[in-house]
């Protein structure tokens, strides 16, 4: 399995990458870790005319605490995320992506820009209320997670934009739970749930739930969130809220799961993730 022929350029700066993309038109693709793109190219499901390799842009690597939140360079690997415990649920979710070799190459920017609803990090970004920065010919813009994911493998990024960084709120005072369900640990999520809970005394002040692979994009379990917000943070209320986790979802069926089974999994995993987060 061999990729089709393509041209290759390795820019030394983000602006050069943007220019290369803009010049080449829609068939050009960015190459970072390559772990979303190259598998598709090997199966010839993706046939770009030009690869713009941003792997050398060292400025885009790293994790920093800044302005009360987190700055994560787009080229930061899952492996780095996984070993940065302070990132909480992001570290946990990253540690469950595929396998170690993939985590050593795959990047947060690549995963988000690919927009695969079965990938772990998109739903985490969505639940956390993170945002990404994109730089294009017209300059930089910020895209909140809620706007980033538009459809299956489709994001709000323009073909000539480079996702340069990811920003996450610090979420101090929040606790988290992460549940990923798959047949084998190296597989994509059949369903994944990222739950964030902010307790106030015995009750739930706020809650945010991200769902992986429950539609063509990562989703928030809004009905479940609504059901728990302001309620006592106990096992009973968590369970009741989790019952609504699949509302408004349209999960794709595949060889491993029917839509109905996935809705069921979403409810079970949401309850478990909330239980983890709430410690109940």
């Amino acid at each position, binding site marked *: *399995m061999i990729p089709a022929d393509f041209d290759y350029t390795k820019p030394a700066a983000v602006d050069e990458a943007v220019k290369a993309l803009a010049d080449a038109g829609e068939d050009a693709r960015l190459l970072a870790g390559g772990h979303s793109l190259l598998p598709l190219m090997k199966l010839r499901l993706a046939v770009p005319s030009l690869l713009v390799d941003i792997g050398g842009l060292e400025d885009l690597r790293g994790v920093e605490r800044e302005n009360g939140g987190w700055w994560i360079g787009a080229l930061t690997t899952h492996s780095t995320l996984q070993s940065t415990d302070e990132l909480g649920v992001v570290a946990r979710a990253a540690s469950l992506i595929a396998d170690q070799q993939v985590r050593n190459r795959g990047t947060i920017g690549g995963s988000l820009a690919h927009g695969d609803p079965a990938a772990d990090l998109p739903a985490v970004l969505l639940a956390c209320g993170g945002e990404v920065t994109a730089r294009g010919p017209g300059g930089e813009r910020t895209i909140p997670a809620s706007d980033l994911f538009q459809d299956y493998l489709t994001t709000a990024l323009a073909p000539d934009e480079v996702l340069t960084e990811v920003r996450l709120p610090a979420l101090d005072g929040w606790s988290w739970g992460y549940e990923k369900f798959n047949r084998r640990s190296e597989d994509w999520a059949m369903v994944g749930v990222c739950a964030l809970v902010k307790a106030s005394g015995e009750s739930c002040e706020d809650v945010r739930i991200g769902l992986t692979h429950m539609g*063509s994009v990562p989703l928030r379990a809004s009905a479940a969130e609504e059901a728990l917000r302001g309620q006592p943070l106990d096992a009973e209320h968590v369970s009741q809220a989790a019952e609504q986790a699949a509302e408004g979802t349209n999960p*794709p069926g595949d060889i*491993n799961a029917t839509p109905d089974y996935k809705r069921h999994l979403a409810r079970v995993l949401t309850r478990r993730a909330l239980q983890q987060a709430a410690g109940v």
Partner: protein
Amino acid sequence: MSTVETPGTGYVGQAMKRKEDPRMITGGARYVDDIALPGMLYAEIVRSPEAHATITSIDASAARERPGVVAVFTGEDLADDFPGPMAAVWHPPGVEMNTPPLWPLSRSQVKHVGEAVAVVVADGRYAAADAVEDVVVDYEPRPVVVDPEKALQEGSPLVWDEFGTNRTHEWTVSGGDIEAALAEADVTVEQRFVNHRTAGAPIEPRGAIGELRGDSLTLYSSTQIPHIARFVLSGVLGVSEDKLRVIAPEVGGGFGTKLQVYPEEALVLALAKRLGRPVKWTESRSENMTTTHHGRDQVNYVTLGAKRDGTLTGLKVRTVADLGAYQMLLTTFIPTLGFPVMGGAYKIPAIDITIEGVFTNKFCTDAIRGAGRPEATYWIELTVDKLARELGMDPIDLRRKNFIPREEFPYDTPLGITYDSGDYHGTLDKLLERFDVDAFRREQAELGGRGVYRGVGFSTYVEVCGLAPSRAVGPKGVGLHAAYWESAMVRVHPTGSATVFTGASPHGQGHDTSFAQIAADRLGVDPQNVDVIHGDTDQGPWGWGTYGSRALAVGGEAVARAAEKVQEKAKRICAALLEAAPEDIEMADGKFQVRGSPDKSMTMADIAGAAHIPPQELPTDIEPGLEETAFFDPENFVYPFGAHACVVDVDAETGKVSVVRYVAVDDCGPAINPKLIDGQIQGGVVHAIGQALYEQVVYDSEGQLVTGTFVDYALPTAAELPGIETDRTETPSPVNSLGVKGVGEAGTIGATPAVTAAVLDALRPLGVEWLEMPLTPRRVWEALKEARGRGAGPPPTEQGQEVSEHGGGGAGSGPTGPEEAGAS
């Protein structure tokens, strides 16, 4: 020149480190794709995207224009290159068999997805891959049938019009009066089983290189059977066997998939002949999933009768075997191969077996690790479990009641088969020493109280292997047009080191080590100085290869016999030189000595030196040299057996099954190398766990393969598995002098019923009575939901679930792309 040191004896039985490992752990092993020959070209195959179609045109002009492309050929182009079709070797006497010809490249029609319709040859891998995309083939699709039972129904689309039916053949065997046996039963249980289609999935895909030098062809192939491959391919290509050499270099796992002669092997030879340059073809994993033969794929209808006290009276089985679109080497035979052990470890006075083979528009089935025996073991063991529940008996007690007792071996079954040796109580006793059932039941109850569903399943299997007594399986026996003896040649060099040539051809089993141990003891040399050569038709005698757990019991025995012949000659030389009678020479501590006189002794190095450079004292009636050949054709199969226990946890909310403990006690006779036995069992058991829980080859209703990569064909990883606990008993076989039985397939044969029974045991409190493999989370969840719908088991943890329907559009996951979404 260094003289080999004289060791002690007693290498057999030692857990020696493997001799093959140093090359493999350093990257020095050489597999087919590692071989690059001067001027070598690369072939890629154009394959059908249609499951059943007529080819209306093939336009290769654009492909031929591409840079680097040397040639493109269609089936019609190469029609004269293949005077004969690929081989199918089972022609049972008295059975009408519908066998279509299988050509290396299709001629005008395709019968399954992936069928080869053209071949592109280019000067590089990448150029060849590009050119394949440029070959334009027009197909006129035809109706497709993928379900073997539907294929037998009136009005089904036909895979082959010319036969007027999708039935390939029907084969029966019976013994005892089955109708009377079932009539006298107090209880009969019936069950339909599905032994689903699986893939062997060796991590090395197949590969082949054809080379022409002068008028001689050489094939390098990732094969388990170089000699059979030469035999078959000489016919397909119409070349004399002496002009065709087949080399199996290092082979990266086979599991039965490389017990085959494949179209691509014929193709690279024909291309090398035509083009005068070496041609390599390397299979991709996607091709491996599509057109390397699959296995299993049977539906079995089983009826088992017993008296109220548990005494078994009769067993009746009807099997529908999905053979796919063509018949390859052993395609038709594999369902029958299990018949000797269809009665399991039990005394059953009457057995009646019917097997129907069926064409479908899928790729061929053939041997995959176990090959017919895992299927049979799956249903006999689970049917015994079901009978135990029906009788209200403990399944272990029911087994013990019906075990063939140790003292009744050799035991003649009603099917005219003789089990060589066995001690079924012995392995079960040992299993139950390691696995405390009472403690487990207490733990299970305690966990159940907390909503943790843990279950145990047992399997007490018998396997038939050591393929095979040629008279029993040959043309006038079961009907294979082949024989299954094995050969060995043992050569001692002038310095006393030795080379063993074997006709068996390993792919991970460790012949280099175990065969060296066998020879070393008999030669009085260190196994480190015994080299084992295999996998080359130009070196050593003819042989039948490695499969069917035969290498040790047949090939190892041939090594022992050849080495003993050498030993006899060495004794004669020794006797002459020490001025003693040959019968007075004995081996002691690895030396040849006059009986009872250690001071009058010679080493093998001394003797080998004399054999090659004969001193004057040596009588002229002793031929020079020290080299002997033996051929061994066993008089019976061997019948290994064992008792396994599997413990699983089932997440009753999600349906996910986890194996938490596996204990295997197996008996394959006296150990040659216990390390290798444990390794075979561990790997075999995990292969079966894969089959039971994770793996399935899935075609959709249009005959499209859904599980075309390792994304969807889910081999278990280390993270899904526990360690596999192993133990042994040793009951010698009378069939060979080593007393050994095969062990390569035993784990795979024994384990699927244990895993399935464990899941059923865990789920019984929830009202689940039956489940078919693979026990995927979705299947288990659906069974739980169905049980709840019947009002069985404890109240649900969730409310308000709607009834499940398959399908749903939208996205799939991962790199398989959106077009596969919704497949179910």
